[in-house]
């Protein structure tokens, strides 16, 4: 009995020792930038004598390049090369890429192997960016940003004494099964089923005739109100919501379920957790987006479905938005997010959010949701009550950036207030 215990103690000690050794023997082994092919996905933009090329390594590539699991630490390196063909110094501002960028030595501290401290610090410092790019020079390096999975959207801002430049990049990073990448928008409706509207009165009628609310999969119970209509080119809508800081959501898979469960428990920030499915036109949402506020319990959800109609040749989307204000226990889904019952407040938030992101050109209101009073609220599928003036907001998404002053209000129906 005693000898058995001794044996197991020895076994444990040997195991621990081996584990400890493995940690040391691994060392800090970053690979050269030439041997990691992430720059094959680089994007280049040129304007007024300045060229900017950028690429974003994925999770594995980042680890190969820097010898530490940066994505696990929610750090995402962005490679940027600036060529200055003007005759004065141009200043690159990493702040434009991420207002909370990390410094090279801060990242180097993630390397836990003290024997490699000097090498890690030198490696990160030499891979950082230089702010000044002198005339005729080409400078490149990494900005250590906070992690965005899916599409990485960022600005590269430069200025000189005479000029300033702003380049906006949208770079797709492999490794995340994003919701709407699974939807083939062209196959949703046969051409003959799509109605083209150009007369506003007929279009308003068609919008008001769309279903009031989402449903469950069987189409039997009614859920959240469909209080949004977006009009615009699909790619412009996609860029607009990314610019307004909405995150794409991940399709439910085993791994993403685990990630969500972990962030539920810790209240931590898993920004891409999959959202539950709601149904319109007999199918679940085409696009689901969320905008996190300070933790997973505080986020806004926003779902869109492509509608079988166009207005003035542009695609029309119907959608739903809700503000999560906490987690509650629900009968049907065990835990779900409690939504703000004042859904009109959340609808107006989206309007302002898009306006301040400079992607809105016009807006209007139409009926179709049907009013519900505070005293006699309706409920969504998880039993959360909500009340509304019954209007949907119609948002025209612009391809170019629009100043707040340029936004037009189209008078179809007026919200109460």
């Amino acid at each position, binding site marked *: 009995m005693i000898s058995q215990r001794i044996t197991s103690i020895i076994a444990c000690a040997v195991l621990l020792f081996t584990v400890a050794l493995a940690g040391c023997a691994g060392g800090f082994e970053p690979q050269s930038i030439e041997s990691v092919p992430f720059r094959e996905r680089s994007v280049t933009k040129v304007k007024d004598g300045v060229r900017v090329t950028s690429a974003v390594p994925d999770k594995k590539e980042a680890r190969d390049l820097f010898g530490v699991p940066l994505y696990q*630490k*929610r750090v995402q390196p962005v490679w940027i090369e600036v060529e200055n063909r003007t005759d004065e110094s141009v200043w690159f*501002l*990493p*702040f*434009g890429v991420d*207002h*909370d960028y*990390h*410094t*090279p*030595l*801060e990242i180097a*501290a*993630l390397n836990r192997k003290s024997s490699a401290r*000097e090498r890690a*610090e*030198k490696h990160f*410092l030499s891979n950082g960016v230089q*702010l*000044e790019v002198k005339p005729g020079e080409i400078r490149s390096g990494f900005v250590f940003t*906070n992690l965005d999975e899916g599409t990485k959207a960022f600005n590269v*801002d430069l*200025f*000189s*004494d005479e*000029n*300033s430049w702003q380049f906006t990049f949208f770079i797709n990073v492999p490794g995340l099964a994003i919701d709407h990448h699974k939807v083939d928008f062209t196959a949703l409706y046969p051409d003959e089923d799509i109605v083209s509207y150009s007369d506003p009165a007929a279009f308003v009628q068609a919008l008001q005739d769309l279903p009031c609310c989402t449903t469950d999969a069987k189409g039997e119970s009614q859920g959240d109100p469909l209080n949004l209509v977006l009009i615009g080119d699909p790619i412009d809508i996609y860029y607009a919501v990314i610019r307004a800081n909405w995150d794409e959501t991940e399709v439910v898979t085993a791994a993403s379920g685990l990630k969500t469960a972990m962030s539920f428990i810790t209240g931590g*920030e898993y920004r891409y957790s999959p959202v539950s499915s709601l149904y319109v036109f007999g199918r679940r949402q085409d696009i689901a987006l969320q905008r996190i*506020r*300070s933790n997973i319990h*505080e986020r806004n959800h926003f779902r869109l479905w492509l509608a079988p109609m166009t207005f003035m040749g542009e695609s029309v989307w119907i959608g739903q938005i809700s*503000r999560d*204000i*906490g987690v509650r226990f629900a009968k049907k889904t065990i835990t779900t997010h*409690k939504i*703000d*019952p*004042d859904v009109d*407040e*959340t609808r*107006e*938030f989206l309007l*302002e*959010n898009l*306006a*301040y992101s400079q992607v809105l050109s016009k807006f209007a209101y139409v009926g179709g949701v049907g009013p519900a009073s505070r005293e006699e609220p309706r409920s969504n599928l998880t039993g959360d009550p909500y009340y509304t003036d019954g209007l949907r907001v119609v948002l025209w998404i612009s391809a170019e950036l629009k100043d*707040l*002053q340029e936004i037009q*209000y189209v008078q179809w129906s007026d*919200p109460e*207030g």
Partner: protein
Amino acid sequence: MNVFRHLTLSILLGCTLALCGCIGSAYVFEQTDVSEIRDRAESRVDTNIRVSAAVLGRQESQGLFGVDLYAQGIQPVWLEIENTGSTPARYAPVSTDSYYFSPLEVAYKNRSGLSDEGRSELERRLEATAMPRYIDPGETRSGFVFTHAVKGAKGFNVDVFGSTASHSFTFLLRVPGFVPDYANFDAVGLYPEKALVDYQGDKVIAGLQDMPCCSTDKAGKDSGNPINLVVIGSGRDTLKALLRSGWLETSSAEAAEAEAHYLFGRSQDAIFRYESVGGESIYEIRFWLAPLTSDQEEVWLGEARHFYAWRSAFPRFDPDVDNARDFTIQKFIYGQALRSLAWLSGTKIVPAESLWDRLLYTPYFSDGSRPVLWLSAEPYSVSEIEIKDWDKRPGAVE
């Protein structure tokens, strides 16, 4: 036996939980009238829109709403908007805080301990006192916007849209109940008038290059950190520019390092701090008023530093002080607070190699530059920033 005990316990627990909902406390708040808040509010007028604003301190919020909103990081801002025009106006809460809390969200966060009736009363109270979005012609509406809490001074915008014009108002208001370092700083009498040399135009370069390179400890012995930026402008304008760029007032008691740094025989006159959203980065600037003026304007010497935490309770000093300096400049640029910039030398050139050299070890490294910044109290466009061609930088360190 055991099974029974468990069962009994579970039933008891279940009952207690169920009862909690019914027997929670009632909702109580002081029916404070807002006249005191209205009296101290600052007002701005633009054509036919008037806006008054005040920030509520912790005690006031607790009295007015009966719950400790500050404990949840929520700071109510009181607004009153008067529309003397002939068309409706719309207020955009996202202009005041892009992540503002909705009234019912605030209620939900503060519901625990209240009875069902108490919860409904809290909801109604918050909805009734919320700032409405629409202000009809001839109307005056007032109410609260629930923002994220800051200490010291709060800088925010109030944007109001009419059918033909938009109005943007900027406020910088003191939050009751917090005393930053600079509030105790008195520039009067600090330097005798005759000791203050005023430099005209570019002549200030020589004066600035004579300023000490680094802060020291109290005894004036150990050289501390490089004085790596200079700000020219009045204290009031500099304060506005700092707050607009997202810097927060702080006090030495709350600084990343408790020990004071010394220059001109005294500890810093003011400290400002910025903490990243994730909390892993802290930037700090300590300021001293310098014994010289530039075209009659005050000159402030600054020590910008960066600390990182990575979930540790003890932030570590980042030896890359140039990065802290450059981050600070960028923060001013994006806060639309920088008007001009010039590059000077002034601090020590310390190569990065000395970090890893046992004999030459220094706690930081730097290219030795000390930029000079002219800040703007009013928003200043990035494309208009002037870079003065002084360029007296020591050669950049590779």
